[in-house]
């Protein structure tokens, strides 16, 4: 009986110290982490809507598709004139994680660039979606989306033109369909 009390108390003490230190560290780091995520998003938006770099990008409350976090409109001028295109921030279920993709397109729906903001796919397979080959400057998987019609992109395995990552079909498909679906919803709302 004395042992059980002693063990129980020791475990309680360990748990309290662990929980206390974790919540303290969390309170210190959470604002920094959110700040970094916001920075990454801003940098991503500038990258996928390069025409709006000196202008302004505003989020718009379009009807959302499941997975879509936010739609944006990019303007070349700071006073929200001269529309250069749209961007979608969308989450999709990958193989082992939720992949967060940002896609920028011009007013006709042609992709300007995509940026994968977050993924935790299988190292060596799914993570190739962010891999830069030696001698190149940007991830080949993302680069191939440029210039294609966003609402129509599909994997080569699904009769499309996007080259999938060998051994990482699910990852490739998750990113591709997220882009296509969100673009399709966006343009169906705009064209109403």
């Amino acid at each position, binding site marked *: 009986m004395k*042992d059980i009390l*002693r*063990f129980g108390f*020791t*475990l309680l003490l*360990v*748990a309290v110290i*662990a929980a206390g*230190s*974790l919540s303290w*560290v*969390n309170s*210190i*780091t*959470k604002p*920094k*982490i959110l700040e*970094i995520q916001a920075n990454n998003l801003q940098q991503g938006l500038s990258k996928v809507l390069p025409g709006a770099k000196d202008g302004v990008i505003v989020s718009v409350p379009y009807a959302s598709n499941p997975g879509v976090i936010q739609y944006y409109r990019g303007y070349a001028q700071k006073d929200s004139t001269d529309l250069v295109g749209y961007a979608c921030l969308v989450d999709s279920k990958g193989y082992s994680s939720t992949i967060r993709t940002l896609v920028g397109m011009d007013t006709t729906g042609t992709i300007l660039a995509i940026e994968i903001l977050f993924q*935790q796919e*299988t*190292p*060596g*397979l799914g*993570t190739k979606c962010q891999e830069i*080959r*030696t001698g190149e400057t940007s991830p080949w998987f993302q680069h191939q989306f440029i210039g294609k019609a966003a609402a129509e992109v599909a994997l080569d395995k699904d009769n499309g033109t996007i080259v999938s990552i*060998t*051994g990482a079909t699910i990852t490739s498909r998750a990113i591709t369909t997220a882009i296509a679906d969100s673009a399709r919803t966006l343009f169906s709302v705009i064209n109403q």
Partner: protein
Amino acid sequence: MKVSQELVKGIYSSNPVFRLMLGLCPTLAVTSSVNNAIGMGGAATFVLLSSNLVVSLIRKVTPAKIRIPVYITVIATFVTIVDLIMAGFFPDLHKSLGIFIPLIVVNCIILGRAEAFASKNNTFYSLVDGLGMGIGFTLALVSIATFREILGNGTWLGIPVFGSAFKPALLMILNPGAFFTIGLIIAFLNWLDTKTASPS
């Protein structure tokens, strides 16, 4: 107990992957490229040093019957704290090593050394043991990754090794390829042992 002996045992005679057979799950996951292997080895060594330090510091006040839950809690808490600090203050480092952190928590080497060594030895030797095991783990990962990346991707550290005509064996990037490689290396090390141990 000699310092050099405790340090070197983790590299060859008690290598955590090839001799102790610990940490095989994360080994499979990160040895598809040498770059990942180095990152994981470094991060795991850091965690191993810290967990061995803490476990050896609290060893006298931890009741033996509940030592496992206590060690697991300590290790998991510590790794999560490292992950949060990296994510908040060292985002570039977190980008490259972030995927390994959750893998390290379930790495049996950490709990294995805590239980087998740090809980029974003083802080100094526990740190030496942690360092030796960490180096041995890293060397094991890099050697497996060298095989898998060259045969399975045609590159080493991302640098193409063969010409463009080389068709990589995808099997090497998948888990069976890892198992084959680990088995072959263990067989080779056992053969080396028979060669060096023969008295005649």
